């Protein structure tokens, strides 16, 4: 494709150095993730990247991935949500009760749980958007309120959930294609599809840029990103395909959500309005953005995702626990900020937040394998959060 444009004119294409400088934050985060992974790989004598460990890394942190998607949107719009941990406990409890006591078939219970999440979100969104109470207060109230309701309904635990339900969090996609060598064929197929999707998507984007004679990144960076991306997909696919169970179902759920929400934030009017409000609320209002409705929808959406996270959390435990979801809100908020979301709103990406969540997850797992005690794990994670945001702020200040 580059034949016609083999030598992009100087004003159309940046130099590689300028490009990397301008996108420092984006790449620094991924680089940090790689460095951390390699550090643990070395320190744990290769235990870190054992296939089964990678699979359980994904399963353990699925709730963070799911919650942080909604959280990054909320933070970009200039709000915060402190209630998601309690909401997860509340909805998780109700989902278990539906299945165990109210005789709701588990697939229907899953759907109803997500709907319930939307209703919880609408409740909070109403206070934030239409009454005008700061989200910090509304969701602080929600944190107490839904924790209380969780305890009221659940007591302590509701257990004995059906295995079909539990497999949402701990199961793998059934191996109905057999093995290629010792690799699970289903996983390999999914990996190939993902790699092809990346390749085609990147080339299509670039072709459009060429067609419209627009400026683009240097060709080396373009190819480099594709090569690195496909290599990463191939490696993860290889690890998962050789793990005990193959492709975790929850990774499919997370993957679909990441793609969907990246699209919403990047390509829809709604997403644009969220960024516009976070960047300059007054200007957004004077551009005709219905700010109240957008705020309301953001909280409904956070509720829906909390519903999904509740199902995943409950399924992973195999039972609903009233004390579930402790500190989940903090995990999601930390992941969003480590992933480059601006403290004052207006800037932040779903993919960035996912990288942030991965950094936190890798830290958790690596430190556990290294037998670092939980109190020191907390200290280290706290420092990582502060350093990540400080890096962001200093980088911005230097940019000025």
């Amino acid at each position, binding site marked *: 494709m580059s034949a016609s444009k083999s030598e992009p004119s100087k004003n159309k294409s940046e130099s590689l150095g300028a490009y990397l400088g301008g996108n420092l934050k984006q790449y620094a985060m991924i680089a940090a993730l790689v460095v951390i992974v390699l550090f643990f790989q070395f320190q744990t004598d290769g235990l870190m990247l054992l296939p089964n460990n990678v699979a359980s890394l994904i399963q353990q942190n699925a709730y963070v991935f799911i919650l942080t998607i909604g959280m990054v949107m909320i933070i970009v719009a200039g709000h915060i949500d402190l209630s998601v941990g309690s909401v997860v406990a509340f909805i998780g409890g109700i989902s278990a009760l539906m299945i165990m006591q109210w005789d709701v078939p588990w697939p229907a219970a899953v759907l109803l749980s997500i709907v319930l999440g939307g209703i919880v979100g609408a409740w909070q969104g109403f206070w934030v958007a239409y009454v005008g109470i700061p989200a910090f207060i509304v969701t602080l109230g929600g944190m107490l309120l839904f924790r209380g309701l969780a305890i009221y309904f659940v007591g302590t635990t509701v257990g004995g959930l059906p295995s079909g339900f539990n497999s949402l969090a701990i199961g793998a996609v059934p191996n109905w294609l057999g093995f290629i060598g010792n690799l699970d064929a289903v996983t390999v197929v999914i990996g190939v599809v993902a790699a092809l999707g990346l390749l085609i998507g990147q080339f299509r984007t670039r072709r459009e840029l060429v067609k419209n004679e627009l*400026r683009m990144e240097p060709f080396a960076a373009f190819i480099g990103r594709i090569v690195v991306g496909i290599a990463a997909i191939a490696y993860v696919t290889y690890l998962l395909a050789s793990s005990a169970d193959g492709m975790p179902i929850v990774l499919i759920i997370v993957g679909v959500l990441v793609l969907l929400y990246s699209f919403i934030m990047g390509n829809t*009017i709604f997403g644009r309005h969220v*960024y516009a409000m976070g960047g*300059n609320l007054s*200007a957004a209002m004077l551009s*005709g953005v219905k700010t109240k409705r957008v705020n309301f929808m953001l909280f409904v959406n956070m509720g829906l995702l909390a519903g999904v996270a509740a199902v995943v959390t409950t399924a992973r435990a195999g039972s609903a626990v009233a004390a579930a979801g402790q500190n989940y809100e903090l995990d999601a908020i930390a992941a969003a900020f480590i992933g480059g979301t601006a403290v004052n709103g*207006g800037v932040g990406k779903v993919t960035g937040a996912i990288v942030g969540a991965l950094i936190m997850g890798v830290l958790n797992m690596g430190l556990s394998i290294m037998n670092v005690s939980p109190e020191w794990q907390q200290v280290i994670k706290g420092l990582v959060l502060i350093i990540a945001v400080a890096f962001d702020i200093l980088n911005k200040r230097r940019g000025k």
Partner: protein
Amino acid sequence: MANDTTPILEMRGITKTFPGVKALQDVTLSVARGEVHAICGENGAGKSTLMKVLSGVYPYGTYDGDIVFEGETSRFKTTRDSEDVGIVIIHQELALSPYLSIAENIFLGNERAKGGVINWAQTNKQAAELLARVGLSEAPDTKIMDIGVGKQQLVEIAKALSKKVKLLILDEPTAALNDEDSAHLLELIRQLKAEGITSIIISHKLNEIAAIADSTTIIRDGQSIETMEMHGAEPVSEDRIIRAMVGRDLATRYPDHTPTIGEEVLRIENWTVHHPNDPSRVVVDQANVTVRAGEIVGIAGLMGAGRTELAMSVFGRSWGTNISGKVFLHGKEVNLKTVDAAIDAGIAYATEDRKHYGLNLIDDIKRNTSAAKLKRIAKLGVVDANREITMAEQFRKDMKTKASSVDMVVGKLSGGNQQKVVLSKWLFAEPEVLILDEPSRGIDVGAKYEIYEIINKLADSGKAVLVISSELPELLGICDRIYAMSQGRITGQIDKAEATQEGLMRYMTQEKSGATR
């Protein structure tokens, strides 16, 4: 006092430069002891800058020239330094804390205390004495938010008195006051003069100046033009002041333009708007405005005349409460309750304050360009990013916006180029009526010319253009017809052929009948 003939204040050769702009150039000001000295000038002439230099807001060393106060050369590093010698400035926006009491506000930063512990008896007693001096009967523990803005102004003066003020500077003290409160305030200034306190008053209201000032200094384009004795052999007329305020050559030039004027597009009838925080205050009063296709219509007015408020209230009621009146587009009445509806109806409003209300400074050119009408490039809520880039690119070329690409962050552009992005944004929304509020504010002369050319082109393409501007030469240079506003009312309408700066300024300073003495 009478035998002390040396001036209380002399400012000599004051020059203050901001990056790229010379705000003050060799300004001289001499204020006699015990007088009321008025400073007059158009918006942006440099009056407030001069007062900020005097009061230490701009510290010694950041300007050139000398300040001599009571015979001593002053080098104020902070406003505290100037207050220590008895110079107190009361800013246009009052600096009171609404949730604290009158007494707490008066002694804020200057507390009646011993060892950090406040003596409330002293605080309230002294506050009551000061309140009596300014003619307020409120209890000292009344909260600021519970008294009107006129009384708040008096509290500011009481606060100044508590600092043993010798020279009191009032920046547009009556701009936010009703007639009665204004009269009361002017009376108080007279009374302070009798007590030996010298005042400098910055005002647009010429009748007030005539009523109260002993001498008047005119500032124009950052220079002191002249100082007039108000009670000299020949009395100074308002016309005389106006001539001095506007009497410059048209240094900037305007592109030639022959309008092609069509049918009426916008008509505003009996439009009345009240202040959102003080619904008893009428900010726009029975305004009637029409704009035809291809016509560039100006609105002239001094600060606080209600021009922006008129525009924003029409633009989807984005300002004000208790709005009444009618808006017609192409002769059909429309009821535009939201900004969204106004944009859909074909109205665009480009704000005077692009940084706070116009642009998302942390986002790029293309996304700012499309922000007001994303649905134009979207299908089922999905934005066509490539179309966005190509269209933004087209606007960038048409407007000659200087930027490396439409991916450039708007916050990094110069003022003129930011303004071009604002114009792109509103043209992207395909309006029929374009309201431009101070379209050339804060941009350099060359870029201004380009902006005027764009405005002309817009009119030629059949759009109805309404321009709000504080620069009279600009209105005279680009408009086909000009309305003048004063105190919320449209006080006059002049065609281009008959318009002069003096004529406009007369309408712009016209008071309501029965106003201040």
